[in-house]
């Protein structure tokens, strides 16, 4: 359906292969998957299309994940964006990139800092109405105080690395295992 619009040319494929750690076969497979998810054949994925996968629709952090996928912030996800972020979380992605990804989940306004409000928002998505705001705020405050070394009230990427960068198995946690 969307072939006219989104067919993958050789050059594109080469480009993506250089840009990510995926092999050609893996890229082709991802492309098929991408086309399948792209129900309207527009060549881009929208939030609506993501929601058509039940497992994904149930993910409380879906909104954040989509926003990170969407690197050029046009509210649609092109195949190159799709591949880049997936590469980060594959087993071949570097630890640095993975931690960066995790940081971006919290850094909603992309200013390079996790503020108190941002952490609160993300945690709110995670727990819904099961904790009240006071309890949630406590967790947030505690976390920020713990990590905030320069006492500016927010967590920079360096402070973030300091907090969890050396945690055991952090790389594992941020790796996605998908079998053939």
């Amino acid at each position: 359906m969307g072939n006219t619009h989104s067919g993958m040319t050789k050059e594109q494929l080469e480009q993506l292969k250089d840009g990510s750690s995926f092999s050609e076969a893996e890229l082709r497979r991802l492309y098929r998957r991408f086309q399948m998810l792209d129900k309207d054949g527009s060549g881009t994925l929208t939030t609506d299309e993501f929601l058509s996968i039940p497992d994904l629709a149930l993910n409380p952090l879906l909104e954040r994940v989509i926003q990170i996928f969407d690197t050029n912030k046009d509210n649609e996800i092109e195949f190159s964006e799709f591949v880049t972020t997936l590469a980060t979380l594959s087993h071949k992605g570097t630890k640095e990139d993975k931690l960066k990804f995790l940081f971006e989940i919290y850094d909603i306004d992309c200013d390079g800092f996790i503020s108190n409000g941002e952490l609160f928002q993300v945690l709110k998505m995670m727990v819904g109405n099961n904790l009240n705001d006071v309890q949630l705020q406590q967790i947030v405050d505690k976390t920020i105080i713990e990590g905030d070394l320069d006492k500016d009230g927010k967590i920079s990427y360096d402070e973030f690395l300091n907090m969890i960068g050396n945690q055991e198995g952090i790389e594992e946690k941020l790796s996605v295992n998908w079998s053939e």
Partner: protein
Amino acid sequence: MNRSSGGSGGGNGNNSGSKSPSPGSMEISQEDTWSLFLPTNSSEIDEISKLIEEKLLKKLNKQVNPSKKFNLSDVSPFLSDGVEVLVDDEFTKCFTSPEIGAWNWNIYLYPAWLLGAFIRYGILFPLRLTCLIFGCLAFAVAFTMSSTLVKNEAKKKTYQRKCISFLCIVFIMSWSGVIKYHGVRPRRKKNQIFVANHTTVMDFVVLQSQFNHASVGQKHKGIIGFIQDKILNCVGCLWFDRAESKDRLLVAQQISKHIADESKDPLLIFPEGVCVNNQYCVMFKKGAFELPNAIIYPVAIKYNTLFVDAFWNSKKQSFIRHMFNLMTSWALVCDVWYLEPTTIREGETPTQFANRVKAMIARKAGIINVPWDGYLKYFRPSSRFSEHKQKIFASRFKRKIEESNSVHDDLSLSHSNSIDDISQETENDKNSVNTTPIDTNNIKQRKSTTATD
């Protein structure tokens, strides 16, 4: 507790709510002719939440956080979980045709394949098509004759049924169906319901050729509607409109009446409600399983994918195209197993019963048993599922908060070294966290044992 009591109301609300967008409901009316739609209710929803819970807990447990505080990496299960399904999710897998790798690009195989293709498309297909057309014509003549000329009602019925069986055989022949039936075909009994997994509309034909049975399904317009009205009515099929919830209740009553009457043909139901690709088995609608006194006769159908994929992907293929695929393949090989009849056990809920039968069928047919509701193809899962996820995650924090409280209570006098930060907020916490005393006690106990260790 809350969930189950408010469940039915909430479930209905969800259903009607998610159905209102017109594109979804438009789509439905054209799909999956023979399927049964009965409401998705709270217990079925629980089934999915249970799956999610198990999956998530497994992940959370795997990543036990050694420090008792919230950790910024605590969200990673959600991330890896979410991204994992982006690449591959079980639900979509249920409804995709398996990909066939090119095997014929080989100097020896290619000519053989070409020859095969020529035979299939150039010789077999025209032959089969001619047979099918003549078979249909013969059927049409015989059927109209028997329905207009024969005055005796009982005799008319027998003739009509014979015609239908004949038509089914013609259809099976048109795709060179090689169907192996295993087990003894059960005789007609009271309150008997056949239940089978659903891959294609042809399931109905495959089983019909063995013995006449009625089915329950979506009412259609146009040519399929004509067939439903004029032809299949003589085996006592029940048609209804999936979108009408009132209709559904009526259908349940009609089904009960139908199965109780031994002179009528046995009923066949596809409780999955949608065509699945025959590698998975999605959730069984419990409708058929909650009828009083029903004896369920499970039937497992497994198509061999050696020559052709029998799955009718109704979103991608038209019915004609599906028929064409079947008719241009070498053969359609399929196994049908009649399993031991079973009834609801004491203390078993209809949902559990449905799941038990589903497991029986899945095991026999060698297909993977997944709990997804096939109707998620059309409707988005209710937000309650994700709320459930949030609850699991939150429960972890709740415990942490409780724990830190109790630790504080227990140990604040002895040493306050490691719990400086906690002690500051405990005062606030006490007001806000109203937990059940039992819970806190448990944690206290656990805490004290670890402390002594």
